[in-house]
Each structure stands twice: as C-alpha cells, then as structure tokens.
C-alpha cells in the first residue's frame, strides 16, 4: 500500500480555497489577481513536491475520508498523473501571471480569478483522481468554469462560442455518464485499479466493449480530435488571452490523459485495446492533416494557434496508438513540451494583439505591430515558432525526434510522412506570421493607437523554459521513459492503490 501524501490534497483544493478568498476581495481586481498568482505558485510548488516524492518513493495516494479503496474516493499520484499535473500547474501559474500584466476588461471582472482557480481545481483533480466518477465531477467543474470565462470574454463572439461549446461538451458528458453506467454494470466498480484488476484476472464481462467505446468518444470530444473538433477553434479563439493559453495547452490534455489511462490500465485486454488503438491512429492522422492545413489557411493568429493545437494533439494520439513503451514516453514528452510552447506562443500573440487598434489577432491588422514592442519579443516569437515546428536546439525537436523514432520502430511510414510534412507546414505558417508581425513596416493606423500593452513577462519565462528543456532534455526524457515503464506495468498501480490483501475483499 502506497504512502499517504497530503500534498496531493493541497494541490487540488488550495486553488478552490484561493478562489473563495478572491471572492471576498470583490471589486479589488488587482488584489484578486495577486492572490490568484500566489495560490498558483504554492500549488505549483506542491505539485513539484509530489513529483519529487514520486521519483523517490513511488506512487503516492490520498484516501479522502480515510475509506479503504475500492470503496472510498481516492486521489492517486503515479508518475503519469504527477507529470501531467506539473505541466498543468506551471502553465496555469503563468496564465495567472499574465493576467496580472493584462489590461483586458475581462481580467477586472470580479469573478475572473475565482473562475480561473476553479478551472485549475477541476483540471488538477481530474488528473489526480483514481476513479471514473470523480473524474466526471472534476471535468464538469473544469468545463463549466471555462465556459463562464469565455462567455465574459472581451470578444463579443465569446458568448456564442461558449454556448456552442457547452452544448457539445454536455454531449461529451452524456457519453461519459453512459460509459460510467456501462462500466458499473460490467464491473460493479468505478475505481481504475479495481477495474484493471478485474479485467486482468477474469474473463471479459458483458458490456465492457460498449463502455470502452463510450469513454473513448467522451475523451476524444474533450480533447477536440478530428470529428469532434469543430467547437475548438471558435471556443479557444474567443477566450481571453490567459484563458486561451491554458485551454489550448493543458485543458485539451485531460482527454489525452483519459485515453492513456484507458489504454494502459482500464481496457488492457486485446479486443478493446485493438479497437481503441485503431481509432486513435486513424483519427490522430486525420487530425494532424486537418489541423496543419487549417492553421495554414486561417485568417487570425490566435485561431491559427488553436488549429495548430488540434494538429499537435493528433501527434500525441499517434504515440498512444502505437502503444510501445518508447512511443508512450515520446507521447508524454510531446504533451509536456507542447503545453509550454503553445501557451507561450498564445501569450505572445496576446501581447501583439493588445497593441492593435481593435485588439484582434486578425492577420490583416497585426502587420507591423511588432515594431512598437521591445525587440526581444520578436526573438521569443521566432524561438517559439521554431520550437513548434521542431527545429533542433529547441524542445519541440526532442519531442518530434522521440515520436519519429518510435514510428520507425512501429514501421508506420504513412503517418511518419504526414508528421514530417506537418512539421514543414508548421514552419511555414510560423515564419510567415513572424515576418508579418515583426518585420513588416507598420501602417499609420497601428502606429497611433492607444494600446492595452500587455506585459510579456510570462511568455518570456515560458520560452526560456522551452529553451532549457531543449538544451537539457535528459531529465524529462528519463522521467518520461520511467513513466512509460511504470504505466505499461499495470499491476504496480493496482497494488499501490488496493494493496496486496485486497483480492480477499469479497464483492457481489
């Protein structure tokens, strides 16, 4: 039985507490945002602490109310959860830092910080939880708070996009609940470890395959993969910049996390695994294709980056679909690096668009805006773009390299060709926008605008993290490899959660 660790509880529920605290400061938006950032920093330190303990002592758990699993709610921090949580808390912390230097009207809204921190609670809780139903509850918390954040956005289209997303996401929730019902009737439990144990020990129960399909649909919808992607560019583009950075980089990864859990722990028997992996490979390939082309031909900078996320999620799905330890490790590295790159680029585009006349990222209006910015912002944007395309000194190269390597091992030539082609397309649209924004001469209208002047500190920190992760990639790659080994070996997780004596517990 793994050791109990209350840092996990701190990481999940401190943001909720901070959200309530910031509600008490109603009307003093500056103080609210500072409280939000302080909470983000503490939560980040707690999550790094959990990651460190994982590296030292193995899986950490927290039993809510002290109930013995599989009966109680349990928070489990294995290496996969810890890695994803550190990724999320880092980006969320930077989002809160960006909100301090941001001059949009929305960040002065009295509930902005509260909603943002509620989103953080939902996100981190969904990544740490050890059972399916708690995952559903945390995911709903995340969805509802992000919908509210987009609905109060400066962009007037935000309301419409929020309704669109709420409808589609509720459909996803419906599928998740159907999956939960099917899982419960098939296994009599909703605890991940318990389900894995039953699947490993006995013959396949009735409805197991249906449960697998429903859950796959729900997670694919949450992470905006090909047939379910149409809400994503609208919803993400209309969001306020700090929220957009979080949505496009880490919130979509919750679905990816769910898919990893499903293929490695919940449905490890051949029949379901084959179905899920085929679905992931096919849809991932189509997503790469559509995402890159969509990003190439769109008219708006933020929308371009949202489309690019849609393509990059496809790469991660390829890694999960191949399913070898190498491919899984590559997928983790890819997810981790992509979160940093994408959030940094989005914040930089937010900085740029805060200098335009109508505060848009429309490519016909951002030309030459970079001239009013300090020169290092252009360098940061170029570095981020190169990293996104996977050019050598940056961390994007490390993730692409790992994925291509595992693709060669799995002998998937078609998808590999697509991946390389998508990389070239990425390079093309990133350098094109860089030239447009930072090289072109400004027009008269952009030169004489009273601008909002967002602070580029947060993206600068994130880009330096990208450079550091590119130059010193070994720790992350080692950790991802160890994670993949732990994940492949499902009994480690099951034993850590249930203990060895649990097989004696009788069930109906």
């Amino acid at each position: 039985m793994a050791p109990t660790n209350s840092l996990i509880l701190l990481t999940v529920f401190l943001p909720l507490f901070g959200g309530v605290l910031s509600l008490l400061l109603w009307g003093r938006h500056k103080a609210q945002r500072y409280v939000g950032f302080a909470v983000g920093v503490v939560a980040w330190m707690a999550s790094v602490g959990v990651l460190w303990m994982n590296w030292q002592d193995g899986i950490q758990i927290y039993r809510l109310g002290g109930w013995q699993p599989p009966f109680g709610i349990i928070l489990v921090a294995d290496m996969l959860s810890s890695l994803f949580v550190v990724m999320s808390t880092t980006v969320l912390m930077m989002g809160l830092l960006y909100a301090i230097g941001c001059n949009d009207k929305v960040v002065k809204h009295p509930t902005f910080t509260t909603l943002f921190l509620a989103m953080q609670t939902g996100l981190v809780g969904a990544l740490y939880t050890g059972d399916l139903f708690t995952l559903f509850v945390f995911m709903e918390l995340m969805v509802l708070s992000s919908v509210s954040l987009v609905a109060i956005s400066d962009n007037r289209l935000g309301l419409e996009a929020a309704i669109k997303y709420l409808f589609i996401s509720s459909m996803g929730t419906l599928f998740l609940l159907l999956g939960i019902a099917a899982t419960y009737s098939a296994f009599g439990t909703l605890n991940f470890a318990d389900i894995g144990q039953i699947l490993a020990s006995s013959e396949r129960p009735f409805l197991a395959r249906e449960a697998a399909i429903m859950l796959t649909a729900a997670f694919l919808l949450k992470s905006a993969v090909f047939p379910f992607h149409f809400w994503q560019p609208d919803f993400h583009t209309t969001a306020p910049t700090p929220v957009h950075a979080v949505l496009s980089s880490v919130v979509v990864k919750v679905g990816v996390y769910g898919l990893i859990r499903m293929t490695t722990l919940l449905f490890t028997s051949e029949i379901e695994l084959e179905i899920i992996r085929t679905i992931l490979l096919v849809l991932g390939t189509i997503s790469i294709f559509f995402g890159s082309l969509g990003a190439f031909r769109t008219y708006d900078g933020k929308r371009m980056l949202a489309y690019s996320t849609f393509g990059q999620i496809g790469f991660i799905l390829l890694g999960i679909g191949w399913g070898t330890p190498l491919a899984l490790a590559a997928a983790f590295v890819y997810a981790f690096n992509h979160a940093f790159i994408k959030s940094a680029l989005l914040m930089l585009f937010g900085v740029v668009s805060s200098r335009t006349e109508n505060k848009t990222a429309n490519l016909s209006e951002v030309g030459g805006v970079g001239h009013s910015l300090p020169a290092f912002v252009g360098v940061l944007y170029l570095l981020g773009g190169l990293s996104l395309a996977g050019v050598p000194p940056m961390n994007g190269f490390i993730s692409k390299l790992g994925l291509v390597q595992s693709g060669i091992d799995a002998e998937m030539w078609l998808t590999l060709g697509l991946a390389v082609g998508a990389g070239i397309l990425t390079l093309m649209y990133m350098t094109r926008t860089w030239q447009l924004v930072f090289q072109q001469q400004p027009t008269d209208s952009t030169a004489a605008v009273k601008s909002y002047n967002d602070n580029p500190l947060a993206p600068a920190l994130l880009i330096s993290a990208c450079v550091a992760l590119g130059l010193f990639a070994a720790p992350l790659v080692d950790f991802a490899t160890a994670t993949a080994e732990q994940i492949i070996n499902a009994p480690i997780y099951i034993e850590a959660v249930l203990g060895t004596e649990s097989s004696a517990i009788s069930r109906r």
Partner: protein
Amino acid sequence: MNLVFAMTVGILFGLGVYQLLRRDLIKAAMGFALLFTAVNLLLLAVGAFDGTVPAYTDQTEQSSDPLVQALILTAIVVSFGSYALLLGLVNIVSTRFGTARTDDVNHLQN
C-alpha cells in the same frame, strides 16, 4: 420492471435527441434536460433492482445497491448546474440578438 425502465429510457433518449436537433436554443436546452434524465434513469437501472430491502437496514435479505443512488444524486446536481448555466447563457443571447433561433445567432462563421 426492467422492461418498463428500458422503454422509458429509450423514449426519453429519442425525445431528447429530437429536441436537441431543433433549431431553437431553448428547445435544444430542454433536450439536454431530457437526455440527462434518461442517463440518470439508466444509472438507476444498473443497480437498483437486485435487492428487495433497503441497504444497511436488514442484512437478512439481499439489499439493493446504494452506490448508484449516490452517483445519481451527484449526477443530478452536476447536470442541473450545467443546465442552469446553459439557460442563463441562452437568456443573454436572446436579449442580445432578440431571438433564440439558431439560424439567426450566427456571427461565428468560418
């Protein structure tokens, strides 16, 4: 009892999907209320009919599963919350656009 439940859930699903596909935001939102009710009934049907006595009162006979009822309570709260938020957003949209028809609320294009 199972047959009655199966038919009710099926009919509610059909009605819900039909409402959801109509070209009016309020009717579509009501479709969601129906669909969530259907799913909650499905969850109830998963475990409610195994026993003959309530849980934790009389252990002489087979008791029905209390966990699904707890799940449904949570699911009702969550789905009610999202339904309320949805209706609130529809309300704002209808004051801003003067209509709740989906064909007219179409500023988000391509």
